[in-house]
């Protein structure tokens, strides 16, 4: 762990991808993707399905070769480091990359050995990883007997057992129960605190807002924003909104007298209003003005601007598609 603390202090990015380009056939999948992840940093790679997240992670894990651009992991060019990449990198693929018939311990041990550990170290560190994800008691059980959440946690244990300096997580919480999700969040945070650089790919905006120090928004193979969550939300230019249900609609221009308040739209049939404002202190004044106009609010909901709004503002598309299907690159 000491060595990782040293890397926290290092100024050199643990992941440094510059100008990545990739096409599958004639279809461009990545266009000039550049991103960095520093030691101790969790960077969210956020984008809708098909944005290029998994392709990016596959290139960073040396599973795909980019058509152009370069990748350095802990200072090593991945095109040239070969087997030396294994100890540096922990990769958690989107699918459950586990052998169903082997036990938890055997899976962790195998991937730790594949990453360069000796058999003894793999056993020791594998046991620690299983302990960390709360699977010590099930370490001898075949994977197929574990629940979905346990498998996800085991998946993470396999990626981190060899104490990599970089962790690439591709949709780690898909299909995970809330308890396991919390466990994964906590574990990833601790790993980052220990100095590991984490690239966290997801299309769940909430996860990025909650966990990530920085976020990279990607759409149609292009990076559309890179910065802290607040910076990106600000880039979207949205302000807080309040949606109000009424017994009747107030007359047009009812809010002209309130500073920095603007009606965005109304639903005549449903007697609903959407109002944008600058400061939350204006909410009381808005409701009071409506009542003064002779209408009575039935209910209201306040919406703060978020990454999804920013994504919509930057790309003109929603962050999540309507189908609600599991994530797909």
């Amino acid at each position: 762990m000491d060595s990782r603390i040293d890397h926290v202090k290092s100024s050199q990015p643990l992941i440094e991808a510059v100008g990545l380009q990739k096409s599958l056939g004639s279809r461009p999948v990545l266009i000039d993707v550049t991103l960095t992840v520093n030691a101790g940093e969790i960077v969210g790679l956020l984008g809708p399905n098909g944005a290029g997240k998994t392709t990016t992670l596959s290139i960073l894990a040396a599973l795909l070769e980019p058509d152009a651009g370069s990748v350095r992991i802990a200072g090593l060019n991945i095109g040239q480091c070969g087997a030396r990449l294994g100890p540096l990198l922990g990769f958690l693929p989107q699918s459950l990359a586990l052998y169903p018939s082997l036990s938890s311990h055997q899976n962790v041990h195998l991937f730790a050995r594949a990453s360069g550990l000796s058999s003894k170290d793999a056993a020791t560190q594998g046991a620690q990883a299983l302990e960390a994800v709360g699977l010590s008691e099930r370490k001898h059980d075949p994977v197929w007997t574990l629940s979905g959440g346990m498998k996800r946690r085991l998946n993470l244990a396999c990626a981190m057992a060899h104490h990599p300096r970089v962790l690439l997580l591709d949709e780690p919480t898909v299909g995970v129960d809330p308890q396991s999700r919390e466990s994964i969040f906590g574990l990833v945070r601790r790993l980052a605190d220990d100095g590991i650089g984490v690239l966290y790919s997801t299309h769940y905006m909430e996860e990025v807002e909650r966990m990530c120090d920085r976020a990279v928004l990607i759409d149609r193979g292009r990076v559309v924003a890179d910065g802290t969550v607040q910076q990106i939300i600000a880039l979207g230019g949205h302000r807080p909104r309040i949606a109000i249900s009424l017994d009747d609609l107030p007359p047009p221009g009812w809010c002209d007298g309130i500073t920095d308040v603007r009606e965005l739209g109304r639903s005549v049939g449903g007697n609903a209003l959407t109002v944008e404002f600058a400061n939350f202190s204006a909410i009381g004044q808005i409701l009071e003005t409506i009542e003064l106009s002779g209408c009575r609010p039935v209910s209201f909901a306040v919406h703060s601007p978020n990454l999804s709004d920013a994504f919509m503002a930057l790309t003109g598309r929603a962050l999540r598609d309507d189908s609600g299907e599991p994530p797909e690159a």
Partner: protein
Amino acid sequence: MLRAVWLIFQNEYRLLLRDRAALFMLLLAPIVISAVAGFSLGNIYGTQPGSEPYRVVILNSDRGWLARRIIEALGHDRSLKVIEAGDISEARTLIATRSRTPMAIEIPPNTTHDFEAGANPKLSIYIDPVKRLEASSIEQAIDPILREITAAANDRTRIAIAQQSSDLKARLTRAAAEIAQAKSDLERSQAALQRTLTASQSDLEAQIGEMSRSIIRAVDRSIDGLRTSVARDVSARQQALVAVRAYLIELESSRSEFEKWITQLKTLAGSRADQIPPPPKWPTPPTQEQIDLLSQPIAIPDIPASHIVAPDNDVHLPEVPKEAKLPQLAIPDLSGLGISQPARIPGVVGWTEHSLGSGSPRVNTFDQYVPGFGVTFLLVDMLWGVAVGLIDERDWGTLARLRASGLSTSGLLIGKLMARFLIGLVQLMILFAVAWAMFNLSLGRTSWALLMPAAAISFAAAAFSLLIACVANSRDAVLPIGAMAALAMSAIGGCWWPLDFEPQWMRAIALAMPTTWTMRAFNDLLIRGLEPAAVVHSSAIAAGLGLLFLVAGVAASSRIYRQR
């Protein structure tokens, strides 16, 4: 890369040990299927390993010794049980109602009699067409029995004929001796006659000689008298000629003197000489040679007595033969009749089976089916282990994760193929060992030689499965494509039946399949009992075909590693 190979190698065994279905397919299924095939299809090879004998219904209408002999011989065959029926309807009923009773044999009336008379009697066999294979198997067993009985009878006849032939030879030998004695007596008589003839001829020649000499003497005396008389007469005539000659010489001299006188006369006559008349002409004298000839003595020819031929006395003596010849007697030479060996009647052309190799000509069906189904299950298991395994690992994501861990793709492939190659090899060895213990499988002359074809097909199957994984590229496609290819390769390659059952075009296709060469090698070792060197070539070809699969599989392996 070695670390990758070793890790994947170990992991394959862990995966296998955890997979009960795969273990079943690997070990138990080939044994069970081989046993079922061996017991069920043993009749194709004319053997019936450990099963109940077939029943053969006999309808004996002959009642002769030949019929009894046939029934006894059939009864001694452990694979057959004889049931005698009274008539054909009873035989039909027995075939229809009894299990393992596929045929009836009728021995027709007079079979023994016809046989002894030199005819070719035929048995009638009634078979249930549904039980054609079983009937053929029993026919195979009956054939040598009939041949043996026929051969034994022929042997007895041959011995009797040989005895008769020997007696005849003795009689002929005696006749030949008597003829030779007669010939000798005749030759002695001929010699005596020859001597008498020679003596008579000498006497006759002496008398003729004496008579010739007396005639010649008489002629000589007559000639001598004649010669004396002629000599006297010639001498007188010779003296007269000498006197003529002297006269002529003198006349010639007178003519010269006369001519000189005339010349002088003319000189003396002077002018009157012209008036002198010419003298008369002298006749031309004979030449000097003629005159000399007159003086030569007259030669009287000498008449030798020996030239006098005796007058023909008109006596014609007959020609006396030089020797006495008897007419040539045509006495046959009995020594050249070849009676020294009695004539033999030709025997029955039959056959006995011998293996071309050192093995038995009777095939243990498991020698065919154990390696055949072993190879089939090896292919199927290899498809499961390599092709499905690779595609599963790709779909699970473990393959990508291992690659992301720094293991090279070549290391992953080699590790997996090596592990599966060894598993396949061990699978075959276990199968052979179990079959040897349970079914008396032959292990050939040198059991270790089985490793050659086993290793070759294990390698080829692993490489073939890699190729199938690349071609099919999905789990759903591997099983139909792979199973079809593996089963076709097994069937065409002679794993399920002897290759010679197949038509020519199919056998030509089979040459491109490692199963064909592997089965050839296994057959050479297990059934033909050949030396290990005999299977090096076929094992090498099987491995070579595996190498082609491997090259094609490696070239196409990027399809497996490609991200989906």
